């Protein structure tokens, strides 16, 4: 097949697969940069996907679904915040707990409400995000090279995908160009400095955790409202952990997050596309090897190119002023 065409298709698939990762990794960026580690991205995404599925189905409105997703995710974030900021509990334990609670309750509630085994009913077009066709996408389709790039790669994604990609520079701007961002980065490095500067460490960290909730909520909504058409139990399938890996891989920087997530997305897209494909010289490789390929390559890349990733200094430890 035309190599260029294959490239476009792979790139398109990459974009779709990396969208939830980007949103979730950016979500993690906000809390972790503020010093609150979050292994509960998975749970929040799952909870959000569930809320989106329920509400979009009941209200027949995709926006209500999105809103519900964000609300639920923020609520879960606040639980994490309460445990790790106010109660100074272990952030990892809290994250793990949230993952468990959400994994169980989405199924229980879904089953209680819809009786479809924890699934929410399939959404009609109104309950889902359609795809956006950029202006002139159809007109320029036949222009060589640029045409397919524009109409095949840039156009035709869900609005949430565009939002996710926009969120990358936006997050950068917020973190590096606003007062909130300055303070947020500071509180993750040295909360004492923030405290003595007359800023409330607690309130600042709560706000960071809320930001995380919002982005995780959108990530979850993407799964059930854009990529899928309704919620299926456990539908995050480990994406929260991969997003976490991407965040560390990216050394907690917005731009790197984009590339890390695109890389994960691409490896996934590649593995999907070339499953069962007879490669020249090698021939067909076992499915399992193809499926493990993204993870193997990640390990190799990590070992080969990315040096030590140094987390925010105050990350993971509660701020204790009076011992």
């Amino acid at each position, binding site marked *: *097949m035309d190599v260029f065409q294959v490239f476009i*298709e792979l790139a398109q*698939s990459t974009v*779709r*697969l990396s969208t*939830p990762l980007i949103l979730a990794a950016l979500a993690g960026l906000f809390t972790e940069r503020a010093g609150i580690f979050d292994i509960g991205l998975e749970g929040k995404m799952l909870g959000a996907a569930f809320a989106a599925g329920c509400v979009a189905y009941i209200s027949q409105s995709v926006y209500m679904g999105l809103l519900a997703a964000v609300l639920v995710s923020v609520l879960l974030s606040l639980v994490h915040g309460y445990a790790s900021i106010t109660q100074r509990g272990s952030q990892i334990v809290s994250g793990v707990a949230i993952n468990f609670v959400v994994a169980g309750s989405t199924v229980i509630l879904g*089953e209680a409400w819809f009786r*479809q*085994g*924890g*699934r929410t009913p*399939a959404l009609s077009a109104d309950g889902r995000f359609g795809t956006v066709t950029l202006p002139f996408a159809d007109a320029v389709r036949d222009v060589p090279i640029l045409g397919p790039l524009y109409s095949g790669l840039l156009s035709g994604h869900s609005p949430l995908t565009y939002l996710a990609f926009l969120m990358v520079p936006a997050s950068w701007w917020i973190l590096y160009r606003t007062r909130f961002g300055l303070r947020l980065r500071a509180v993750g490095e040295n909360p004492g400095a923030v405290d003595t500067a007359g800023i409330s460490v607690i309130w600042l960290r709560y706000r960071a955790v809320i930001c995380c909730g919002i982005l995780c909520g959108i990530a979850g909504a993407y*799964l059930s409202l854009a*990529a*899928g*058409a*309704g919620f*299926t*139990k*456990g*539908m995050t*399938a*480990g994406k929260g952990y991969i997003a976490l890996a991407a965040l560390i891989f990216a050394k907690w920087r917005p731009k790197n997050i984009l590339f890390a997530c695109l890389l994960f997305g691409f490896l*996934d*897209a590649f593995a*999907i*596309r070339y*499953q*069962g494909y007879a490669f020249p010289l090698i021939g067909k490789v076992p*499915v*399992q090897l193809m*499926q*493990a390929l993204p993870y193997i390559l990640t390990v190799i890349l990590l070992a080969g190119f990315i040096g030590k990733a140094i987390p925010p200094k105050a990350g993971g430890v509660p701020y204790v002023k009076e011992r």
Partner: protein
Amino acid sequence: ADIKPAIIYDLGGKFDKSFNEAAYNGAEKFKTETGIEYREFEIANDAQREQALRRFAGDGNNPIVMAGFSWAAQLEKVAAEYPDTKFAIIDMVVDKPNVRSVVFKEEEGSWLAGIMAGMASKSKTVSFVGGMDIPLIHKFACGYIGGAKSLGADYNVLEAYTGTTPDAWNDPVKGGEIAKSQFDQGSDVVYHAAGGTGVGVLQAAADAGKLGIGVDSNQNGLHPGKVLTSMVKRVDVAVYDAFMSAKDDKFQPGINVLGLKENGVDVALDDNNASLVTPEMKAAIDKARADIIAGTVKVHDYMSDETCPY
């Protein structure tokens, strides 16, 4: 007779949108028709298999049906200890005097699905999405490939599996993505045997204006007019029969092999896909069905040698 039926589901859980759910539907049907309550249990790990079996047998439940091929070892043990209890196992053969083993010829139903897919395809490329790379799913895949290729050697069948962890059965997003990738490679009909993941496969097909094929239960109604057919596997009937025959004191132990002939598998035709099934298609599957039942066409069973000749 007075019976206290029970059913135990496999790890996928009662509502896996395919196999276990079909078993559940059979039990429900029995309940609504007879008004007899049944007990049920979803195991959460392997250690609970034997525990659940003993528990139900010890409580005097009879018959006890279990869904899934992973029960064999435990059933063998427990069935010997409770010779008066009747057991039925689906998808696996356990040779005990009080056990009924129900296995399906998934390959036969899939063969028909393959023929329909091939005939509906414009590109002569069709595809298959499996949940995990396990023998049972290869049975589906192999029959499907064989069916499609029976239309001509120039038919191409793409085949992909979702993953290697249990998430593979519950990942509609990835399922959808696999389907899209197959569409990119020219496929225009996709058949799934992937449980909850399949929901995403069918959705992707509907979204892309391609055709999907459902599995186990009749999934034609999920996207009317966009699901070509479903390869139904009458697990529900098997469960229902096990309960019913016990109630009527007609429970027969032994091996039940359910193929096209026994109505154990088939492709679903109903209002939802009526517009998609052309008369030629209908004729072709009727002929194929007849040939298979008559034995003039032999569909290869993947399990016989764990290879697929097609």
